């Protein structure tokens, strides 16, 4: 049973058992424009909640991606190296950025669920 949460920085995090997958939301991908390059974290990298974890580049901008919760990166989506367009095509599926193990489940639980995030986006 997987569970997806959202940050107010437009990252999503989907928990499947022990491992969580992180990416950016459809709203963020649309605002960014065509993604041309993604800088992914290395396996084993320690991240903190709200700390920089990855960088996504469009032609005119570079945006930092923050880790939704603290933990350790276990793998990154190397398919994005050849096809950064996946982030635009399927940001909440095949366009995932990296997987991680979460240290403190409390940080995960604090995040918005789909409904709350939907309301948050509307308010922007």
């Amino acid at each position, binding site marked *: 049973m997987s569970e997806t949460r959202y940050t107010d*920085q*437009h*990252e999503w995090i989907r928990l499947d058992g022990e491992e969580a997958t992180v990416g*950016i939301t459809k709203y*963020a991908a649309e*605002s*960014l*424009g*065509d993604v*041309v*390059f993604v800088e992914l974290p290395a396996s084993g990298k320690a991240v903190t909640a709200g700390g920089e974890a990855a960088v*996504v*580049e*469009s*032609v*005119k*901008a*570079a*945006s*930092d*991606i*923050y880790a939704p919760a603290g933990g350790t990166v276990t793998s990154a989506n190397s398919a994005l190296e050849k096809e*950064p*367009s996946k982030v635009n095509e399927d940001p909440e599926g095949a366009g995932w950025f990296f997987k991680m193990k979460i240290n403190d489940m409390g940080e995960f639980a604090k995040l918005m669920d789909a409904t709350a995030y939907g309301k948050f986006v509307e308010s922007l």
Partner: protein
Amino acid sequence: MTMNNQGRPSGAGEAFPAGIATISGDRGLDHEEPLIFELGHGASGVDFPDVKVADDRLGGMRRKDRIGLPGLSEPEVVRHYVRLSRMNYAIDSGLYPLGSCTMKHNPRLNEKMARLPGFGDLHPLAPQSATQGALELISQLMNWLTTLTGMPAVAMSPKAGAHGELCGLLAIRAAIASRGETRKRILVPESAHGTNPATAAFAGFTVDEVPAKPNGHVDAEALKAKLGPDVAAIMLTNPNTCGLFEGEVKEIADAVHAAGAYFYCDGANFNAIAGKVRPGDLGVDAMHINLHKTFSTPHGGGGPGAGPVVLSERLAPFAPIPLLVVDGKGLRLIEDVKAPPQGAKPFGRMCAFHGQMGMFVRALTYMLSHGRDGVRQASEDAVLSANYILASLKDVMSAPFGEGPCMHEALFDDSFLEGTGVTTLDFAKAMIDEGYHPMTMYFPLVVHGAMLIEPTESESKASLDCFIHVLHTLATEARAKQTERFAGAPHLAPRRRLDETAAARKPVLRYKPPQSFKEAAE
């Protein structure tokens, strides 16, 4: 993620049907032009005898392979580059309203003077007795720069504005170190040009952003609150990047100095105040001057520039080598960092040799031509023209600080385009079809969809009136949702919109010859 609110389309978009197809692919005076590599065929554009040389004094490092350069005759090369030139917009062809770039007229006298053999054909390491005229020129230019800014000293060697910023920050760093202190933080307004925080990082500092107030001015209270024993300097642009003069600048400077820090001023907007206001009177410690902006040295398609840095009493001792001194024998460059003149503690060297002499000649020629009264008049006309544009367009284009007055540039945002389906980008591209280079777009970042217009003093009133008429009409049409002009613009330039996404995803950065049959068969 940090939300990029400047995201905008970077693909090529849709095409419109072309005009009548020609046989050659050229259209009248507009010629398509291949790469020099595709034209080369083994001819040569120079006449050199074929001299044979032995290997014995080449250390075994003689080249074994061909380089792969194309060969053409002189007429072919001339035609190639003339055709390329015709695909460029230029100040000589039309108004260039680029905010913060100061696209003023480039006098040709400057070019003639720079090419006098006594300047152009002079080696930087010739004996100094043989270069006294050059050193005298540099000395006169230094006098103009220090007098106009009211500062006691100037470092001449930085090769561009950003290079000047680095020079200023390194001088500040050295000054702090000489007091036995360590200060790591630099305060930079969020409206600053990207070179400011980039340079601060380059000089080993961390950047702390200061917010802007809704009225476009830096938040002086917030700035003062951030001062402390770990702040090395603030970097302010004045007039600022919204085209406004920071009236509280002296109070800010006093607070900064009281906190033991330094005031770096980005001089990119000096064209608004040259000959009228002296940065030295405002408490500035270091300011770079873009000779290619305020002092008309040509932009040359992106360079070369020059960025000498005026320095306060506090920072003057730390100016980098080379230093120009006068002694019994005449003018002399001190190039030895270990044997500086009395009281000087140069922090090092910014580049080889002495600086952008070619740009010095041009700038001094400009200054002598204008005189102090002409420099002052130029600044006044620049400010007048920008205000004229602001007053003429603010009824149809949204100006966040439209009450005015502005300085030498007028800032608009994209509020007036809301709901029209036309973006700042579309608006700018439609200007191209009207024969204008677009204004600076999406900068400064503190307003949404920024459009920053700097006409300079070089435009006649007739030219300004044409420009105003076109922008006024475009804005009116956009607001009425008449979007035909904007969709897919430009239609009339040598190229339609280019696919920047593809260029970034799959970079092709050099010519690759098509595969030969042999290679393809293998």
